[in-house]
């Protein structure tokens, strides 16, 4: 289709998201009377759904795939649209639409919710841009474009001390990480003489005494990625930001923003710093990611096991899942025939995770909307009053734990199998042990919902409203989590094809 339509069509999802964000902002600024929670939510949802439709359409028509002439390069190679970019754009657009639909009920009594929608859509625009960026400069700009709205979103409850404090900490840690990332970029530029990823990749073969500079820069870039994916030790902002932020924002950050971090990692560490050339130059970033993955999944799961509040447990579990997804870059090898398989499995895991984790946070959003409390005990017996939502939550929990027959089982299975095939048995074994631990705290939620008795007969009286849009978003996420099981074949095939095209 590249022959029929101008190549810039490939940027349609990004442009649609940007246009939606601008329109929301414009209406909010110019005609403050015309905006309302509902109209803003509908506009944001429509915009993200149209972007999703455009992404799916581009994927189906084969834009950027190897069959249709390879990736679409735009703006002097600064932008590159390929299957992986579209795959991740689909994750971002799906999560965004779920979050804005759910937010409609969550912010039902907020005085000025319109800004929320434009900020979310702008952040999504930044993520979509991040997915297609092909130059270190664009990567940095897009990353900031994701981060800055995120800081504001976390602190969206201006009067809430927790929300503002979390936003502040997020911003401070984020500023430090951005500085490290930018410093890393400059060192890499110094060593290779280019910002275009493919040129950097070519220069990696002939560093001529600049190995130290390049290596230092690469490790700093690893640090920047680790911040965005909330990997240990760059994770400190995450538990507090996720807990303090409004629950839809936590869902957005822990699913979409994390995936954005991974798309950068996948892009940079295949094109700019190819495994073979890096290892040949004694820059063993694979080991760095291996350490990060191991520490992240272990710390995330251990910490999640001892939490008393469901939202904070989910925050740590989200850190643990970042550890699993890091296997996608940590289990690469120089000659690896299985590189595409393991990275593709990580992508598929992020897609599945996008639905199940968003759904779980949105259930928390629903609980906050009801006002039933935040701890495991407060959730006791909720299934009696809200059986549909509780069933959906059970689906998310079991899927996050990786139990068959839910989609989370298959994505994790392919990920660990890919790691084993590529010779990283220890990572897979560690991942399996961590999954067992995670089953403990995930099943605590299900036990509380379905088995435990409520503390008092009146403690469930708070469940007196039926937030339709939140329900719709939660149920849709649950249905997607279940349907991804039969639909996992095409997903993993697309993901592996996209990943294989990178090597």
């Amino acid at each position: 289709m590249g022959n029929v339509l101008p190549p810039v069509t490939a940027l349609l999802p990004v442009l649609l998201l940007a246009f939606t964000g601008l329109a929301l902002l414009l209406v909010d600024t110019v005609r403050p009377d015309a905006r309302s929670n509902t109209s803003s939510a509908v506009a944001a949802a429509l915009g993200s759904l149209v972007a999703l439709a455009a992404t799916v359409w581009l994927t189906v028509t084969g834009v950027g795939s190897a069959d249709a002439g390879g990736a679409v390069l735009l703006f002097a190679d600064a932008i590159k649209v390929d299957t992986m970019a579209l795959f991740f754009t689909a994750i971002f657009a799906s999560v965004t639409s779920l979050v804005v639909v759910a937010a409609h009920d969550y912010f039902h009594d907020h005085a000025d919710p319109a800004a929320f929608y434009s900020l979310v859509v702008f952040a999504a625009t930044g993520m979509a841009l991040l997915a297609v960026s092909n130059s270190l400069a664009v990567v940095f700009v897009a990353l900031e474009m994701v981060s800055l709205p995120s800081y504001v979103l976390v602190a969206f409850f201006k009067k809430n001390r927790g929300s503002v404090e979390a936003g502040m900490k997020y911003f401070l840690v984020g500023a430090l990480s951005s500085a490290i990332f930018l410093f890393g970029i400059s060192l890499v530029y110094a060593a290779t003489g280019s910002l275009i990823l493919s040129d950097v990749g070519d220069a990696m073969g002939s560093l001529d005494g600049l190995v130290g500079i390049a290596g230092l820069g690469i490790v700093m870039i690893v640090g920047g990625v680790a911040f965005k994916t909330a990997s240990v030790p760059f994770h400190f902002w995450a538990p507090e930001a996720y807990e303090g932020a409004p629950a839809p924002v936590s869902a957005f950050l822990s699913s979409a923003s994390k995936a954005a971090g991974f798309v950068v990692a996948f892009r940079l560490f295949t094109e700019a710093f190819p495994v073979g050339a890096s290892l040949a130059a004694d820059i063993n970033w694979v080991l760095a990611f291996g350490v990060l993955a191991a520490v992240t999944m272990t710390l995330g799961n251990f910490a999640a096991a001892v939490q008393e509040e469901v939202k904070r447990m989910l925050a740590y579990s989200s850190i643990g899942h970042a550890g699993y997804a890091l296997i996608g870059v940590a289990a690469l090898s120089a000659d690896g025939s299985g590189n595409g398989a393991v990275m593709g499995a990580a992508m598929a895991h992020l897609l599945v995770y996008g639905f199940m984790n968003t759904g779980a946070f949105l259930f928390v959003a629903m609980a906050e909307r009801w006002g039933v409390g935040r701890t495991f005990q407060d959730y006791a017996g909720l299934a009696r009053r809200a059986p549909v939502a509780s069933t959906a939550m059970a689906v998310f929990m079991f899927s996050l734990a990786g139990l068959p027959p839910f989609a989370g089982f298959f994505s994790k299975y392919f990920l660990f199998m890919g790691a084993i095939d590529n010779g990283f048995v220890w990572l897979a074994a560690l991942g399996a042990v961590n999954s067992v631990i995670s089953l403990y705290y995930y099943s605590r939620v299900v036990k509380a919902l379905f088995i435990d008795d409520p503390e008092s007969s009146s403690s469930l009286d708070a469940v007196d409203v039926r937030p339709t849009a939140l329900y719709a978003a939660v149920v849709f996420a649950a249905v997607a989590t279940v349907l991804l099981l039969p639909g996992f074949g095409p997903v993993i095939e697309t993901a592996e094809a996209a990943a294989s095209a990178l090597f």
Partner: protein
Amino acid sequence: MVDAFAYVPAIVLLPFFSFLVALGAGRYLPKGGAFGGIAATAGSFLLSLWVLATVAGGRAYNETLYYWASEGGAGIGPTDIELTFGVLIDPLSALMLVIVTLVALLVHVFSLGYMNDEGETGLPRYYAGLGLFTASMLGFVVADNLLMAFMFFELVGLCSYLLIGFHFREPGPPSAAKKAFLVTRFGDYFFLVGVVAVFATFGTATFAGEGSFPALADAALNGSGSVAWIPGGLELQTWLTIVGLLVLGGVVGKSAQFPLHTWLPDAMEGPTPVSALIHAATMVAAGVYLVARMYGFYALTPTTLAVIAFIGGFTALFAATMGLVKDELKQVLAYSTISQYGYMMLALGAGGYVAAVFHLTTHAFFKALLFLGAGAVIIAMHHNEDMWDMGGLKSKMPVTYYTFLAGSLALAGIFPFAGFWSKDEILYEALVHAPGEPLLFGGYLMGLLAVPVTAFYTFRMVFLTFHGEPRSATARDPEPVRWNVKGPLAVLGTLAVVTGFINMVPVQKVLGLEGIDVLHRWLDNEWGGIDGLSSHHYADLGPYSSEYLVGGEVGTVLVGAAVSLGLALTGVLVAWRLYNVPSPTEHTAKLGGIKDVLYNNYYLDELQVWLAYRTEDVAGGADTFDQGIIDGVVNGVSSVSLFGGNRIRRIQTGIVSQYTAILTLGLVALILVLGVTGGWFL
């Protein structure tokens, strides 16, 4: 012309639809969905007749219909296994289709009288069960590979569970249903391992054709081929024997052979028409049919054949002795079923493939007849099954009496009723193949001894039920039965008399009349069939040669027939003397201590319970290990993780400057590790 084989799936699906209809809409239909079941089985019966006629027209059918895993070569595992559903129609399966559909149809009609007229509740559930039962058995019969056969075999087991436990509110039936399910499951466990072993060994589990596993096994034994896998350096012959015995586990469970026969007498708790279906045409028949279906495989392993023959002969005698002392009508029939299937196994083990199929056919009719007749008596007696409360029913219910008598004569093996011909052929085959085969000879002797015992308990049952003076008020004034009971009895009564004539081998051999051994020629593909699935081929494969006693072949036939008929008549006469009196008394006391042993079924139930408890002890040991060692490790991991988690929690102090410090130190540590190992600072 329209091809009959295109409708084979419909034979299976029609009863399945009746199951769905009865389940979904049975409540709103007249008679609880009975008519749907009758129409469906009647349709299946007509289609089966058509298929039989088509096979008689010289054609056969072996077609894979559906690949449910790995179509087109991209198979699973190292041997490229394909998992399929298919249909295999040859003379054997065509004959079995007719038997199953006919018996199922008659059982459906009879149920109108037994269930509907008696005002039972839960009829939709009952007819749904019957429909699924029939459909599962038909699917099993037409299966073209072992895995498909296994799946339908399991469905048959499930349906028997549902139907035996039909009266689930009473204490007995649910327990009997569980027992039937668990005991047959024990055998099926071996069967499943056998199926996997067949797949692993041959890469296929199809029954017929060039690439079927019996053909591959034959080729491998001849040295003209090889198998994909043999575990641990076993001899090929040994391994094939092991595989055959594994599959035999399922057969022993389903066909109620020693030692897994204990579920069957308890299964009498189910409604009587269900017992008829289970014993005559579906569940119990499934085991024997499976051996016949893959006989080309069993014929290759003499050890397995000998084991089959010995188990069969032993079961025939063993079950017959237990039938001697039972007081309840259906209990006697239950033990007779076990015993008769023992005969079929003896025939299969003795190389008498045709004889086994012959006895399967005749037995299907006369045992269905006897059960339905017993059902009629039970209706008349207001569900009192104790024979000591009966007596004198002969004049009150003549249709039931005469048909029941025909069935009993067939069961006892009296000339010229159906059972005589088939049982005689089994004993003949065992006899001529026995020399030099001690296990087979033992089986033959036990089978022969079981003949008078069978005749005795059969006629003890007949005399106690129908002859003499009525011994209770209900027996003096029994409830009348209607056409829907008498009709099926009449049909089956006729068949019990005439079915034997389809295979009059002794007459042919003695008189030299050619062409009256129809079943022999039918199973020998004389009209049509599939290469490699003929009785002739099986005889070539088999290990046996024939040796005759006095007077060559004719003499042996005559002596054999005379001995078995004489023994049967002896049994009948003894029963006549003891029980055909106006007021018979129990003679079991004369048996002394043996009586208790027989009453208690040789204490086998107790033995199995004891074994179950010993298994529980072993399981207890495993449980201790699990609780102590495994759970200990798991609990250890979890307490470590909880402890560690608490430590980690403390790192999250909430102070940003500490976070940034740890973050920076972590980055520096990473840089140092990579830098030092990569030599960046040199």
